[in-house]
């Protein structure tokens, strides 16, 4: 399967790997924002997940433990954000930015002894029968567990938000906090849980960078992935499956343009380099022209039961 001189059997897995970190972080942030909270600390939670995941994986030699601890670390960091914004009514934007700074600094500090160490890598899961399908097998059915997990999370979130009572409550809290409160829902508590979920998936996303995509620990290694995840949520109009499409589109074009450069295709490098952003802008314009923006009504508004 060769297109434009690029083997799709190599390209598709590469783009899925490249997209998975932002995909995980973005789906978590989508849930957080659905509940009406804007957490700009994604980058900080990702990098914390990256360093904790790496440390645990190196010490236990079992990558999955790394991912589990990364999820806890991300969630723990987000608890700080949750307490500050939900109970102490601090400004969400400032607190989120602070969280990013704390995460970057903290990870640099505790990651210092782990620079230049090799981590155990995830094994590719071979799915019986499916993996043996020619072309499609190596392309889609021979990834590590986290890639499948990320798709599973997307599917679960999409299902829960759309089809279940829990999803309905979450949306109610995000769309109109006062109405939800009047109905007797615990706005703060629901948001607290959503924030922790966002922290956990951001942590796993970060750990995927340090344990699978790169794999090594380098200070500041997320290098802005958290911000891309935040943009992706808007890009996806807060819809879970669109997060997947957006992440694969962005990741896909990024990987594709690198490959096109590598084979020396006769397109100016400048155009190739800006193509991921260009396509993102085009899609955003398309959405605002033909779709409808669905930002949660209470997004980033502080809530106190007395008001």
């Amino acid at each position, binding site marked *: 399967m060769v297109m434009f001189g690029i083997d799709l059997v190599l390209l598709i897995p*590469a783009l899925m790997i490249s997209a998975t970190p932002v995909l995980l972080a973005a789906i978590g942030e989508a849930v957080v924002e659905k509940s009406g909270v804007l957490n700009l600390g994604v980058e900080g939670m990702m990098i914390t997940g990256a360093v904790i995941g790496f440390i645990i994986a190196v010490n236990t030699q079992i990558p999955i433990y790394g991912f589990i601890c990364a999820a806890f670390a991300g969630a723990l960091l987000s608890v700080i954000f949750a307490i500050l914004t939900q109970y102490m009514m601090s400004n969400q934007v*400032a607190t989120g930015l602070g969280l990013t700074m704390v995460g970057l600094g903290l990870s640099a500090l505790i990651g210092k002894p782990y620079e*230049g160490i090799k981590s155990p890598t995830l094994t590719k899961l071979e799915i019986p029968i499916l993996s043996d399908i020619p072309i499609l097998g190596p392309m889609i059915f021979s990834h590590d567990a986290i890639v499948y997990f990320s798709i599973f999370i997307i599917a679960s979130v999409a299902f829960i938000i759309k089809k279940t009572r829990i999803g309905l409550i979450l949306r109610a809290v995000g769309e109109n906090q006062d109405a939800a409160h009047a109905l007797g829902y615990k706005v703060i508590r629901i948001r607290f849980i959503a924030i922790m979920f966002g922290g956990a998936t951001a942590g796993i996303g970060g750990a995927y*960078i340090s344990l699978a995509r790169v794999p090594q620990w*380098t*200070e*500041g290694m997320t*290098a802005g992935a958290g911000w891309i995840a935040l943009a992706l949520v808007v890009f996806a109009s807060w819809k879970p499956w669109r997060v997947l499409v957006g992440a694969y589109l962005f990741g896909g074009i990024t990987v594709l343009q690198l490959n096109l450069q590598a084979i*020396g295709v006769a397109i100016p490098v400048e155009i190739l380099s800006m193509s991921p952003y260009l396509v993102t802008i085009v899609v955003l314009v398309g959405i605002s022209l033909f779709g409808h923006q669905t930002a949660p009504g209470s997004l980033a508004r502080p809530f106190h039961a007395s008001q």
Partner: protein
Amino acid sequence: MKFKSILTGVLLAFGLGTAAIAADVKVGFVYVGPIGDGGWTYEHDKGRLAVEKHFGDRVETIYQENVPEGADAERVMTTMAMQGADLIFTTSFGYMDPTINVAKKFPNVKFEHATGYKRSDNVSTYSARFYEGRAIQGHIAGKMTKTNKVGYIASFPIPEVIRGINSAYIHAKKVNPNIEFNIIWVYTWFDPAKEADAAKALIDQGADVVLQHTDSTAPQAAAKEAGNVITFGQASDMGEYAPMPRVSSIIDDWAPYYVARTQAVLDGSWESVDTWDGIGPGMVGIGEISDAVPADVKAEALAMRDAIADGSYHPFTGPIKKQDGSDWLGAGETSDDGTLLGMNFYVEGITAEVPQ
């Protein structure tokens, strides 16, 4: 109230670490990446630590990591100058104009800009002749590649990077006429994930040698995972990836220069100068060539290193043609520094085009 408390927090965060103890001279360093990048910034910080060690209490150093190239850099430099820095090293090409701008406002502060070409009364420039090391890498790459494809992760299309590509290509081509260079421009100095993606793309396209002009060790990790791919440490030894994939390295040794320039400020003898040193004076080091390299190739590489060091061989020695086929250097002719410093063309044989 809230804004004020945030402001205090930010000031505390940035200010506390630099609370003054009386020292004769205060030296500031502006870094483009984190100290822990394992490459470029890591080596500059080693230079900073050497200054601290050499002068003890007489000199105080301050630094700021992850400073974006652009307006932010001006803010950081201004802050350092206002904190009383006497000498400020700005360690990335993109700090060139910010350095010149800030230097105008602080005529009594000395500035040193790495890898740039703009100077003024209180701005020196310094750089290392990395291309000398690239020649040795090109030689080893040309000898060792089996696919005849060399991948090159380039950062920004500036003369320093283009010079490195040309130098590596000329010497790879010399020993392997079938060599082909695949170049990826990532437009960043430091982004481990993107660097890893670029390395993987090059390897997927058949490259079994990956050269990098970016700062992190991510390409080394990607090559290690791929198996039969060799790499070279960039800016720092990156010895943790030896003997494979990292078979050698270019090491930037800034310490002697930083110590000498700090001394000049202490003595009051500091002047605006342009320093461009290579393997000979020790500013560029060639990291140990590992056992993965065949003994004869290693011997040739070391001979080339020594010839460059004593000045008997110049990596840009003619006959060399430009990419468009026009003559650049005649037989035996060597390039002048001016052409090298402004290099914006590929040499003959490279199929890609220089991004403009």
